[in-house]
């Protein structure tokens, strides 16, 4: 390692850190093998578009494929703006991406929450009340 670091000169201009550079390159190659398949990526691309381009209301763009993880944040954001959040699930397709509206009472306010993955209003309330605490 020491020698590698001390090496200067000819192989590439990056060989000040030859070992690390090579390991980074190997790591990148390995990481790139785990890139999701094209179908998944295109679904996410569609989600990104749907998430960004909603109806006239305020939009909180959350790619919420780990839906449960984001619920408290979305709920908190709903409260903050007194508005509407749309959660799009990465499982969504253009056919089923139209959200299902759910109205829930959070912190004394009714929040209209739109989601499309069957998440129950009860789940949202429980998560939101955790946030409010």
């Amino acid at each position: 390692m020491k020698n590698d670091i001390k090496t200067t000169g000819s192989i590439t201009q990056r060989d000040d850190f030859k070992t690390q550079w090579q390991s980074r390159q190997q790591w990148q190659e390995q990481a790139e093998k785990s890139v999701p398949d094209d179908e998944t990526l295109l679904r996410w691309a569609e989600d990104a578009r749907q998430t960004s381009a909603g109806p006239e209301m305020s939009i909180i763009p959350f790619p919420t494929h780990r839906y449960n993880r984001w619920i408290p944040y979305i709920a908190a954001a709903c409260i903050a703006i007194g508005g509407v959040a749309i959660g799009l699930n990465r499982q969504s397709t253009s056919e089923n991406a139209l959200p299902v509206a759910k109205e829930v009472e959070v912190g004394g306010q009714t929040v209209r929450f739109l989601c499309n993955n069957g998440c129950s209003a009860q789940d949202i309330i429980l998560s939101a009340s955790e946030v409010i605490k």
Partner: protein
Amino acid sequence: MESSESYGANKKSQTDFNALVLRHKAMIWHICSDYSLGRAWNIEDCMQEVMVSLWRDFDKFEGRSSEKTWVWRVATNTMLMLKRKDNRSPQTESIETEGAEKKSNDMGNDSYQQLQQLIEALPEENGIIIRAFLDGFSYKEIAEMTGSSVGSVAMRIARTKRRLRIMYERENNI
């Protein structure tokens, strides 16, 4: 809150966007993985955050820089934004009922992780430049991405490499 019109989604098509995502999927993925290393971030979440940013800015891309450098810049900015948010936020336990994984975040080997830690310890702008350099971009491309001159980029890279070497030697008592 921006309206959907401001995203300019009408001018360029979803088909173009899909093609862009597929062309640069490996690069976006490795940028997400790179910044996620050592953090409890889900790389897939990061990838989706990047896609949202790309879509929002898609219409603003005018082809003055290469598509690759534009995607790299948007992805990097998104990850930096997440990093800043992460640094500001108190650590919370997320509720994850689907066994959400911390997979891939520890996939680096020792040499790489050490390099990564050193890069993380650099001032942000130097970290960006050295990452771009390690990702194989030319000085000219890095200058384009960062809005600097080629000479300034060359100088910063040389200085950052020297600094990294000193940090490395100090860390390893060399």
